[in-house]
């Protein structure tokens, strides 16, 4: 069935496609979960819909309310769609070192953007938004970093979809941002498919993004529970971009740079499975497509030029 009453009903149930050319063998296979096939083109549609609906059900969101959210882009765009259709105003605190497409999309949906300084990345956006929320008690901050409904979306939908489509799954590899995707999907798989390894691919940005004034400005999302993960792999900008291009060249899948980081980690896992002679079905979570990053230079010129262009940008 591919008919829906509204675009919000078309959230989730995304395709899982094989990556036969990147898979090292018939026994060790990679599978891409195409989350760009969600209403606003990213996995965050699941979280946004879940958080907003939970707030409505709890009576926190009254008609016409103003929502405030710190975001590096995708969550903001996803919230913008739901807010638009359900009659809420949305204010997003977003680091200034995010792509132009993200700002344009938010503005198109009628969102007010409060820019936060590039240095310190999302940490600064979170801190600013939490301060603004305290100063404006009538605004509702869903707070994707601490909101249980973020992870719950993946326990209810993403996890079950994966197990339905790939009962032989051995590894889940996904990007680490709010940690909602990995916490929710990981928790579901740990409970329902024991033995599946939960692997986080963490983007390693340029130095500017880590430009905190002191270590106490560091930030670990409240949702994060280390016990859900088996492994956490750090992937630099150059490797992420190289894999993003490889995904286009070898498989025809046009994904955002964070997916390149996920693929890089997945290939590490796949290589180890081959070496140890074990079979593996590895899920590569494709959080979004590449459209919103075209202006950053991530897809043009040499890899060196692209890596340089993305230095200091929040590309995941």
């Amino acid at each position, binding site marked *: 069935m591919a008919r829906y009453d509204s675009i919000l009903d078309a959230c989730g149930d995304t395709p899982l496609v094989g990556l036969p050319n990147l898979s090292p063998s018939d026994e060790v296979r990679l599978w891409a979960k195409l989350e760009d096939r969600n209403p606003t083109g990213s996995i965050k549609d699941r979280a946004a819909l879940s958080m907003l609906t939970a707030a409505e059900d709890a009576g926190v969101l009254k008609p016409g309310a103003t929502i405030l959210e710190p975001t590096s882009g995708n969550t903001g765009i996803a919230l913008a769609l739901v807010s638009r259709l359900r009659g809420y105003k949305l204010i997003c605190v977003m680091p200034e070192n995010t792509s132009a497409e993200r700002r344009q999309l938010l503005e198109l949906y009628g969102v007010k953007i409060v820019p936060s300084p590039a240095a310190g990345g999302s940490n600064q956006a979170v801190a600013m938004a939490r301060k603004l929320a305290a100063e404006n008690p009538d605004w509702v901050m869903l707070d994707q970093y601490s909101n249980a409904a973020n992870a719950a979306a993946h326990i209810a939908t993403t996890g079950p979809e994966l197990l339905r489509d790939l009962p032989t799954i051995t590894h889940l590899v996904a*990007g680490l941002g709010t940690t909602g995707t990995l916490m929710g999907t990981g928790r579901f798989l740990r409970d329902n498919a024991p033995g599946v390894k939960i692997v986080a691919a*963490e983007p390693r940005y340029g130095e500017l*993004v880590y430009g*905190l004034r002191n270590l106490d400005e560091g*930030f670990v999302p409240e949702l994060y529970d280390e016990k859900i993960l088996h492994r956490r792999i750090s992937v630099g900008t150059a490797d992420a971009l190289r894999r993003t291009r490889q995904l286009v060249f070898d498989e025809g899948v046009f994904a955002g740079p964070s997916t390149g980081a996920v693929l890089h980690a997945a290939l590490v896992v796949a290589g180890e499975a081959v070496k140890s002679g074990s079979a593996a079905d590895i899920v590569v979570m494709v959080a979004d497509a590449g459209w919103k990053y075209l202006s950053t230079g991530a897809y043009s010129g040499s890899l060196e030029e692209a890596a340089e262009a993305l230095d200091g940008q929040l590309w995941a």
Partner: protein
Amino acid sequence: MSVEVRIPTILRTHTGGEKLVSGAGDTLSALFADLDTRHNGLSGRVITAEGSLHRFVNVYVNDEDVRFTGGLDTKLNDGDSVTILPAVAGG
């Protein structure tokens, strides 16, 4: 044996501004003890008084987060690359 260690901007006050330093040690805690002899105070910024990693610091050995590989007991080999980074948010 020698291990190279990448130092984040915020901790370079301990390394005279150097972003890449080298050290030695069979484990991560031995490495930090060694680094502290030349880069006074560095160890204390990364490891708490209780002997665990500071909550807002992540340490990677060859790109693997050490919290999943044995923490400060993580074994090191000649030529390994250690990266220290402050914890930042995504999303």
